[in-house]
């Protein structure tokens, strides 16, 4: 094998390639329900399996355990709890961010699963696992039916 230490791959004979392709992802049957309720009503919805009784968030079209169709939607409101969180100090290139960004997994009472999202209106050292939080939505005119229609979760007032 070649054993010289090479710190920059471009110092070898090479060909620079590119694999970019663009995509448009449909949100699906359960996703349309979920994102429409966020966009129109500022509500987070789960889906309840009428066979096993489990409420899943994000909602699904089918229960992955019973393999039956989920037809019952459950309004979970906009309040949840921090299940775990991280404080991100660097961007994807490893460069230091001007301000760290907090991301958390938010769980909701009566449902299994949760959403990952940003935390806001709080300092990194103030965040705790178990902390009650609530969603802060973008103004209705700016909502597009995406997970970013929620700006972030903030401590419950």
């Amino acid at each position: 094998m070649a054993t010289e230490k090479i710190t920059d791959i471009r110092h070898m004979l090479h060909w620079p390639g590119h694999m970019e392709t663009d995509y448009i992802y449909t949100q699906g049957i359960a996703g349309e329900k979920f994102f429409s309720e966020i966009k129109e009503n500022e509500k987070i919805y789960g889906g309840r399996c009428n066979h096993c009784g489990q409420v899943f968030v994000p909602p699904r079209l089918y229960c992955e355990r019973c393999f039956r169709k989920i037809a019952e939607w459950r309004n979970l409101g906009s309040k949840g709890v921090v299940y775990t969180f991280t404080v991100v100090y660097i961007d994807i290139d490893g460069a230091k961010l001007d301000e760290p960004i907090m991301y958390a997994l938010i769980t909701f009472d009566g449902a299994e699963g949760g959403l990952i999202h940003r935390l806001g209106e709080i300092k990194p050292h103030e965040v705790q696992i178990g902390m009650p939080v609530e969603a802060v939505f973008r103004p209705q005119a700016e909502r597009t039916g995406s997970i970013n229609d929620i700006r972030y979760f903030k401590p419950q007032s």
Partner: protein
Amino acid sequence: MVGKKRVAVIGAGMTLFRRNLKETGKELAWHASKMALDQAGLELNDMQSVVMGTAPDAFDGVHMKGEYLADGAGAWRKPYSRVFVGGGTGVFAIDAGWWHVASGQFDTCLVVAEEKMSSCYPHPAYAFTTIFDPIYSRPLGVTLIWIFALEMHRYMHRHGIKKEEIALVSVKNKRNALDHPCAQLGANITVEDVLNSEIMCWPVQRLDISPTSDGAAALVLASEDVAKKLTDNPVWIDGTGWCIDTTFWTNRDLYYPRYVQCAAQMAYKMAGIKNPPKEIDVAEVYDPFDYKELHHMEGLMLARKGQAPKLTADGVTQRDGDLPINPSGGLLGVGNPIAAAGLMKCCEIFWQLRGEAGKRQVKGDPRTGLAQAWGDLMQYGSVVIMRS
């Protein structure tokens, strides 16, 4: 074992693990495959089937890279398949090779794993951004490291584990890697070095993480009849297991890898293992992050939930301890060319059980070893149990 043929490992090989290797992925696969065949004393013509394990196409930058790598893996005009379960691929590849031979369909199988991550420029972190759910996760700008940070934090919180306890894994594995001739990051570091390294996504710091690597590894599998003709020292594959948990990672415990437990139970049952910590002599546990070694030891039931840090602090998992974990140096020390790193662990168990691990040889006379990998979106467990 009724209805299944017994399967042996009779040769192993691997390349250097490095960032920016000059060799193409095919050339790396060929190096490792040739070394494994040489150790088995066989030629490519003796191989009746080939299994290639290699992870996302986006690393090498060739869509259908299983097909692209086939000739380097010795698949010319042979029954060939590529298997891919993310980071779990390396150990799943030997599981897949096992069923090729155990089924009786083939007497021999060449199992190869390859990854050339440095082709993804400037950093393979970009390839990871497209592994997440496109509507619930990717619009948030999710990166691989902060997903693991969320899991690590939950594990620490659930059991009251401190960063200092986790850092001991990185210290141990990088030191072990100093004795591995293929290692990328062998080093003598301290707990303080880990705690003082750059904070990336708290609680993950620079020295908690394995590197970006290029590399390949390979094993030669043979049926009992063939193996006994070729070697006095076969290593038997006595247990295989694999399992996937829900694709919604937000619906998992995070503090405990149920999918690893499920895969381990399958393998232990097949191998007749009732008391894993007593019966396993040496284990290569998947360690792309230091906390994952602890997390996976618990999933493998080598430690009770929340107790892996104590075993580590007590020196039980050192190379001269009662349950050596990652005597190779693991992904943290040897390097992490994803699929190849998992198969490197199988190579290490093979060499350990044959008494061929040189300066890395664990004490005593290990007879039963385990290798494990973990993958897809933090949801896949693959396990193999080998005996000499």
